[in-house]
């Protein structure tokens, strides 16, 4: 695919839901389910482990549960998931058992990734049931930046909260870009030009249009986000201030796919329930 604008809109939507989760003191990971033929967003999910006191309430479980409650005859082969972080081993197995068509994720999950980083649950032929397609890399620096905004806080529900040492997340580089697919699968999804330019360039980001940079505020706006099903009903009103706070968390990406560390960003501070200027 040459033009990935729609895919970026979907991922930006998931990222905004993840931001709303952060405001609710949850790990900022979220997903949406999209009907493959209509392109419609049919469910949303976000990490809900803190409020539920349940370590299995990951975004994927919330999104699918909602869908199953509304409709008992779901063909998961019609559904694509856009999730900000590579599904963990548990979620990868869950999605495979459902028979999902495809998973598109932002950043890889170094600790628990089940779609290629730690284990390849999505396509391991030793396991029963169908495998599924999976690819990473869309808006992965934004997904990482959201997580960094979360991890500089302290986990107050852990038995012994750890004191975080490195709180400086501005100007911090991103780990190498890993897509967890082979060349063919990469080309199949991202197209030949990106394969030549990005596949072996681990510091270059995917952009919606080849040769053009982007900023998150180009992708979604207030009205678009207000119209996302279940979002306001579940997570409270979406307003202009909140959407702007969300945009301000991320660096711009330039025409060469490089992160513009010179662009000004802000960090989220849960104590003040507000964003800090980085000056």
């Amino acid at each position, binding site marked *: 695919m040459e033009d990935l604008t729609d895919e970026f809109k979907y991922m930006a939507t998931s990222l905004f839901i993840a931001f709303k989760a952060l405001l609710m003191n949850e790990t900022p990971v979220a997903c949406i389910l999209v009907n493959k033929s209509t392109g419609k967003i049919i469910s949303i999910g976000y990490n809900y482990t803190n409020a539920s006191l*349940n370590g299995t309430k990951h975004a994927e479980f919330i999104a699918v*549960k909602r869908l199953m409650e509304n409709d008992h005859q779901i063909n998961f082969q019609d559904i694509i998931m856009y999730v900000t972080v590579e599904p963990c*081993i548990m979620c990868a*197995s869950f999605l495979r058992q459902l028979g999902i068509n495809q998973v598109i994720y932002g950043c890889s999950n170094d600790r628990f990734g089940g779609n290629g980083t*730690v284990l390849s649950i999505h396509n391991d032929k030793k396991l*029963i049931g169908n495998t599924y397609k999976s690819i990473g890399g869309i808006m992965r620096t934004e997904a990482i930046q959201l997580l960094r905004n979360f991890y500089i806080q302290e986990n107050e529900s852990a038995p012994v909260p750890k004191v975080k040492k490195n709180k400086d997340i501005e100007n911090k580089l991103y780990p190498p870009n890993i897509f967890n697919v082979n060349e063919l699968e990469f080309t199949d999804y991202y197209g030949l030009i990106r394969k030549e330019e990005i596949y072996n360039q681990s510091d270059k980001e995917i952009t919606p249009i080849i040769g053009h940079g982007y900023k998150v505020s180009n992708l979604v706006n207030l009205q678009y986000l207000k119209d996302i099903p279940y979002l306001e009903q579940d997570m409270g009103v979406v307003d202009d201030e909140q959407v702007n706070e969300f945009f301000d968390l991320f660096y711009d990406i330039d025409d060469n796919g490089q992160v513009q560390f010179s662009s000004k960003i802000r960090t989220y501070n849960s104590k003040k329930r507000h964003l800090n200027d980085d000056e």
Partner: protein
Amino acid sequence: MARRGRTPVVSDYVDIENGIIHGVLKQVRAQDSDSFRSKTASLVEVWCCEIIPTQAQLLANVIRDHINSNDEVSLIHLKRFLKEERSDVTVLKAVLCSTTFLETEEAVMTFIAAHTNIDIKCLYTIEVPKYPARTKEISDLWSDTYWPMSWKGNPNHQFLNSVTFNMDFEKSIVNKLIEKYKQSLTYPCSVTIIAKETENNEGEILAITRSTDCTNPYNHSVMQAIDFISESEKQRRKLATGKHKEPSNYLCHNLWFYVTHEPCVMCCMALVHSRIGRIIYLKESPQSGGLESNYQLGDRDGLNWKFDIWKWIDQKDIDTLDSLGKNLQVEHNVNY
């Protein structure tokens, strides 16, 4: 965790060679897999320095008092010092800490200077094995290749000799599992019991769940049981008032799980996320299970939690389960 005695005594109910206790509980460990036997070490980068031998005690104190308890990477499986005779002088090389604990050379120097007055001659990074070796042979090999390892006998043998079970209690739980399995109206299904350790190695049952539809991942008995625990904790917190607040329970921290079938990959990872203490299961699930059959999820380096895994191998209990599931052509094709 299973209780560990202070002075391990070799007992007649332990079969060290096969990891079997009381003839019915078989330890399931990664040692049966290739990766366990692998001689390739997972490596971690550490700071190594050189000092004059007379300052060894000073440095050992700093490591003991200020590094070991703060460094996320445990290095206690390494010998900390290595003496090196050079043509004119004897130097002592020492492993200080991981490079994740102190990231830069400057940070190391500042840290050392803040705690003691040692003359660091030379500071550089090296790679050493991240985890203890599992056999003496591998320990020797790694000592020659990377850095001297400290070998204090097979850690698992020590564990097996000190682990204790209250067999009357364990048998009663297995009977309950089978009883509940028998009462099912639909097969295939699985049953999960969660217990919390009380006194005398006994446990108090907190949840019993049974799946009715294994094709629905939410319905797996392990997932239902985990949900039950979080729901009860939410209720408990709601009802606990002011002064009488008990300490909060964290997820399924250190709880005991009993399951009729080796849980699927999803459920096994859910157990890792839920920080359980131990699982005992009866039947393996070769094409779907996440323990002995695939990945060994509760006993895997690299994930952030491990739990003890045991398989109940009493043949008459297995036969009972089999006789109930006998007509199930599909049984091996199921995610439990």
